Structures are given as structure tokens and as C-alpha cells.
């Protein structure tokens, strides 16, 4: 992604502060820009910015560049950078925070945002994940065009069906689903309170 160098530099320091207040956000301040994450990352080549550059843009308050970047969505949670970062920054967890923040602030054009939302809706409704349910919810969010693309993949699906890898019926719901939902609600409430501290 091209940085818009011809425009006056806009520093949105509020943005940096907001990101630092996320669950793992304050770790970003420890980044020493060494580049270990960039050379380690499994998907670096297809990221708009490496984790290192993204963290720098956060420090600079570049809100749109950061939230429109595909970096956090390309992250596969492989933990390589987390295991190698000399500053001990849990980069994968920072990426989780950025995904959540992007979704909450309406930056969710990336197909993975739809997948993440579909996955969570599934967990929240039965306490377990059912691939069929996640897939259906995903295409509901993304619409018909995406479904057409999926048609190119029909062989994969058929092969999975043939080898009993794609159950058509969901698993039983968690029996304690009511309590699980209460726990989740309470956790979200506490998390919001903590973030406001």
C-alpha cells in the first residue's frame, strides 16, 4: 500500500492512545523496530505492512492506514513472531486486538472480518463451532458474489463430503449454554470496565 507522502502528515495521537489501551496494546510501545517479526512472518509477502511497520504507523497515529491495512487479517496466528520477538511482544495477541478494534469501528471489508463474525455468532449460539453453520453465516454476510467464487472450490467440498469430513448436522448444543452465556456477558462487561480504567 502506498503511503500518501504528498499530503501533510497527520498525527492522530488519540488513535495511538486508544490502541495502547486495548488489552495487549501497551506492548506496542516496547517495539524497537528490529524487524525480526517481518522476516519471520509466514504471510509477510501478502501483508500491506509487516507487523513492525504497522506498529510504527500506530505510533505515528495513522488511523486509516492502520485500520484499512490487511496486515492483521493476513495474520494466521502461527506464533512464529511471538516466539522470536526479542522484546517479548505477543504480536499475535496484538493482532487479535486490532481485528476486534477494526470490526468495532466499521473497518470490516476484509472477507476475514466476515468469517470471524460468523465464527463468533456460531460459538455464541451453541457453545461449539459447527463448520456448516460458520460457512452459511459467512456467505450470508458476504453475499452472492462470494458464493460464486466458492463454486470454483466445489471439488474440495465434495471430497470432504465423500470422506465424512463435513457433517451436515450441527453437534449438540452445550448443556450449560445458559450459564456459558452469562459467563461471556460478565466477561465482556468486566473487559469494558478494565479498558476504561
Amino acid at each position, binding site marked *: 500500500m502506498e503511503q500518501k507522502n504528498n499530503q501533510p502528515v497527520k498525527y492522530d495521537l488519540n488513535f495511538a492512545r486508544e490502541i495502547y489501551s486495548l488489552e495487549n496494546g501497551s506492548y506496542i510501545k516496547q517495539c524497537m523496530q528490529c524487524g525480526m517479526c517481518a522476516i519471520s512472518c*509466514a504471510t509477510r509477502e501478502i501483508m500491506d505492512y509487516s507487523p513492525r511497520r504497522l506498529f510504527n504507523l500506530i505510533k505515528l497515529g495513522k488511523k486509516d492506514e492502520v485500520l484499512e491495512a490487511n496486515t492483521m487479517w493476513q495474520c*494466521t496466528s502461527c506464533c512464529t513472531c511471538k516466539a522470536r520477538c526479542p522484546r517479548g511482544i505477543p504480536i499475535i495477541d496484538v493482532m487479535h486486538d486490532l481485528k476486534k478494534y477494526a470490526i468495532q469501528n466499521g473497518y470490516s471489508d476484509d472477507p476475514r472480518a466476515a468469517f470471524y463474525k460468523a465464527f463468533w455468532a456460531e*460459538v455464541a449460539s451453541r*457453545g*461449539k463451532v459447527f463448520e456448516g453453520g*460458520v460457512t452459511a453465516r459467512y456467505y450470508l454476510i458476504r453475499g452472492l458474489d462470494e458464493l460464486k467464487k466458492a463454486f470454483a472450490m466445489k471439488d474440495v467440498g465434495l471430497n470432504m463430503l465423500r470422506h465424512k469430513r463435513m457433517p451436515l448436522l450441527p453437534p449438540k448444543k452445550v448443556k450449560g449454554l445458559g450459564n456459558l452465556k452469562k*459467563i461471556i456477558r460478565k466477561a465482556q462487561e468486566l473487559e469494558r470496565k478494565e479498558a476504561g480504567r
Partner: protein
Amino acid sequence: MKYSFYPGCSMEATAQANLKSIEAVAGALDLHLEEIPDWNCCGATVASGVVGDFTQQVMTARNLAIAEPKGYDVVVGCSSCYLSLAVTNKRFKEDEHFKALANEALAAGGLKYDGSLRVRQFLEVVINDAGFDRVKEKVKRPLTGLKVAGYVGCQTVRAIPYEFDDPEYPVQMDKLMEALGATAVDFPMKARCCGSSNAIAATDIVVDSALKIFQSAAGGGAQVIVTPCPMCQLNLDAYQQRVNQLHGTNFNIPVLFFTQLMAVAFDLPEDARALNYCIVSPYEALAAYGVGK
């Protein structure tokens, strides 16, 4: 030895072969797995991208809270579930503030977790509790001559680095394969990411990752790939044909859970080997070891 067992969602769906072979191998090695009653999804690495780490970890902790009264080690057979459960468990042990808050949330569902358990991967339990010698004793059909690429994947050894193997170049699963009589091939991509949950929303990532992994395994002359991870297994198995279509390659490497190959070497019944779940047929590669369709 008794353990609390956390199967995870995939074992009820795409990875039934993982469940069947783990249960059978555990039985053969006298490792008693007791399923955690009414367990729930750990959230994988996806939930925290929507609701944040704290909520995801609390949800994961419900399973640990239910298991705690028994006091057994918690055994996990999925790398992604392991990452969730092990990291959450570590936070309960190391972060008092987190623990207090998390217990406040758990209390809303009448639960409490004190952080007293150990969370372990089935692979590590086989290696450290059963041990290579016990495994060797159980082998009835040595896999002599079978060239195996041990695909450990990313999270297995990096969720908690150096917990039981080298996070950069793991060797323990290779040793286990050699205990079965097989030959572990040189496989530089053995701890590389498979593309994980991108299969639906960004298929290219999975196809590209899989291509590199197949090239690396084939370069070492591998006849089969084994893995402990349901996500790795599914991506490499279900997308192998797609890789071939898109890249004009001709890979035909069956991808098994390491426990399936153990079931073959232990000469356990077909239901334990669960080879009918393999999309890339394993029957040719394993024909010499008493496996028929």
C-alpha cells in the same frame, strides 16, 4: 495414568479420525482419557479477534473449571485448542489480577478455577508419559522402510515455546515415528504454518502454504505426512487436489494424524486407524503394512 480429555469441536466434525485414533492409541498405552463433561468451544484463535483475549480466555477457562475437581492433567488433541487452553492456564498461574477478574466472570455461571491443573498435548503425553520404549513394545507391524514427513505445524511447538520441543526445528514427533520403525525424512518446512482458518475466506493462503509444504515433504522423499493438528491435516488433505489443479503439480501424499500411523503400527482394528476419512488415499503407501481397503 488418568487424564481429563478436551476433544474440541473439530473432533466431532472434520477430524473424527483424530478422535478415534487418539482414543484407541491411548487405550493401547494405558493412558485413561476421561472426557471433560459438557465442554465448550475454546474460541480457537478466532474468537479473540471479535471479543478480545479476556472474554475468549474466560470462555476457555470454563472447561478448566469443570475439570479441576478431578485434579488430572488436561490432555488436548488439537493444536489450536491447546494454544487457547495452555495460554489461558498460564495466565491463571502467573497473573493474579487476571485470575481474580476471570473468576468474577466464571462465578456468573457458578464456576471457579484456581489454576491448579496442567494442560498438555496428547503428542507430548505419548512421548513423556508412555515413552518411546512402551511405544516400541506395542509395535506389531514395524513401519520399516516407510518414509514419513513429520509435519508438526506452527502452534504445537510455539504456543508455549520450548515446553517440550524446539520451536524452530522440532524433533520429538520424528523420534516417535522412528520408534514405530519408520524413517523420518528431512523436512525443512515441518514447523511452517498451513494457512490455518483462511480456507474459506482466503483460500489462496492455504493453497500457497500447502504447495510449499508438499514441495518440502516430497523433496525429502516422503510417502506420507503425519501431523498432530486437525487444521493442518484438513488443509493439506482437502486442498491437495486443488494445489495440483492450480499449480500443475502431481502430489499424491496421504496426510494422517500421527495417531493413525501409530494405530497401523500397533495393528489396531480398522475403526481405530480410521483411514476411510482420508481424502488422499493412504492405502497404496501403507499396503506393505497390512492395510487394505
